């Protein structure tokens, strides 16, 4: 039992460290969230600011904006380990790689939830959507957030240390997140009353994706940070 507790304490320490850095540097709040809102506004311009069109496609546009912004958040999370030999120090510290992974993914998850909340506000105000099923919205948003954070942290660790991280990360990560995009969009379609689908059925796909991404990430992280 004490091992589990120690593991969780390690993970919590890493998550708190990443969040503290974010709280002091405000990169996500100051750059990633405005970027996400900017994407929403650009969609509005591109679709000719037609409220009905925007409402119909709101959930898809929301999740595309989340994924694009998540790339920046993941990139930032991976970049934290690159400066001042932080990754070498973590490797030497004896922290279990899985705890490091869970910690970093948790920090990204917290930032993604914040991003989703702000974007949802954008949907309500700019696109004029209405929430029909708040519970479904919350469950789908959280599950998709876990999947994106876990997969993002895994691929962020994978692409870090390579000279072409900025260009490689999107082409590695976005195809993996395709099922999450589909599932989350369908669930939000139902929650926002845009399309008559069974949104709860799609949360099953999101749960499986979140579970796989977390387990694979925790198992593979040791291999990735070793190289």
């Amino acid at each position, binding site marked *: 039992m004490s091992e589990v507790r120690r593991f969780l304490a390690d993970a919590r320490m890493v998550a708190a460290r990443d969040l503290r850095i974010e709280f002091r540097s405000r990169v996500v709040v100051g750059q990633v969230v405005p970027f996400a809102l900017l994407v929403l506004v650009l969609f509005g311009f591109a679709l000719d600011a037609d409220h009905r069109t925007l409402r119909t496609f709101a959930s898809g546009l929301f999740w595309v904006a989340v994924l694009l912004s998540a790339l920046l958040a993941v990139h930032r999370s991976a970049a934290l380990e690159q400066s001042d030999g932080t990754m070498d120090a973590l490797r030497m510290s004896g922290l279990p790689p899985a705890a490091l992974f869970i910690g970093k993914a948790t920090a990204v998850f917290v930032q993604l939830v914040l991003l989703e909340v702000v974007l949802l506000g954008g949907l309500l105000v700019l696109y004029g959507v209405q929430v029909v099923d708040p519970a479904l919205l919350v469950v789908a948003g959280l599950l998709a957030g876990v999947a994106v954070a876990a997969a993002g942290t*895994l691929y962020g660790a*994978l*692409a870090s240390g*390579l*000279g*072409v991280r900025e260009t*490689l990360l999107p*082409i*590695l990560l*976005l*195809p*993996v997140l*395709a*099922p999450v995009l*589909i599932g989350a969009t369908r669930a939000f379609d139902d929650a926002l009353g845009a399309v008559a689908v069974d949104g709860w059925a799609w949360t099953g796909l999101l749960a499986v994706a979140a579970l*796989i991404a977390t387990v*694979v990430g925790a198992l*593979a992280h040791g*291999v*990735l940070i*070793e*190289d």
Partner: protein
Amino acid sequence: MAGRDERPGNTGSRGSRLLGCVALASLVVLGVLAFFLTGPDVRLHPTTGEEFGQFDAVRMLYLHVPMAVLMYASFMLCAAASVGVLVKRTPWWDVMAHSTAEVGTVLCGLVLVTGSIWGRPVWNTWWEWGDVRLMTTLVLFLLFAGYLALRRTTTDPRRQERKAAVVALVAVLDIPLVNRSVAWWENRTLHQRSTLEELKIQDLTLFTLMFGFLTFGLVVWWLTLQRFRVGWLERAAIDHAVGSAIAERRSETSADELDAAIGVTDEQAGEASP
């Protein structure tokens, strides 16, 4: 490798040349069988007596179906080799994983293209967004395109062989989805459950399809063999470059300086030489 040509940069051997010739001849025979000798798929409706079926489009399936199956095989081999990379950490597994992934990606691209050409007359569209197997196959293609992009990020493959192995193992998780999608989401696909069940295939048609599997098996074998040898030569070239750089560095330094640098004293050097 026995029988391999000793000329530098040559990947051919007597066996692989023979294999290549047989594969090429089989492709020609398959082309003749698929496009000339077999008939179009025309069936009569039991009640109205109207003609229906895939007509000449069915010929594309003699290429499409074997390529899809060999694509699965290549990616599964890639997954097995990636496990080998993580467990054994030897170059053989890594070169194998890279080779099979590259051949599999080419096949995946061809499966999408031939499927699209087939879909135009049969489904009346080049691309069907609602088809779950089409989507999962496209994702598979993009996943392995990412894998190949990762492999191209450095000239020394040893630097990211374990990372590449993880990417490949995540990517193959999509294969069961591609394969089972037709059964799991029956109302979200235009793909038939199984071509063999659907078409009531017999005689020459069945033979052509089986011959297609054999032909593409040979082609994939040959391609993978060649790609493996190219990968192996790449490794050898890197090792050679590193070896000659060390030799060059050593030749710049006198023997005494070298001994001093690695901490060998004059007495030890004297004892060592008879």
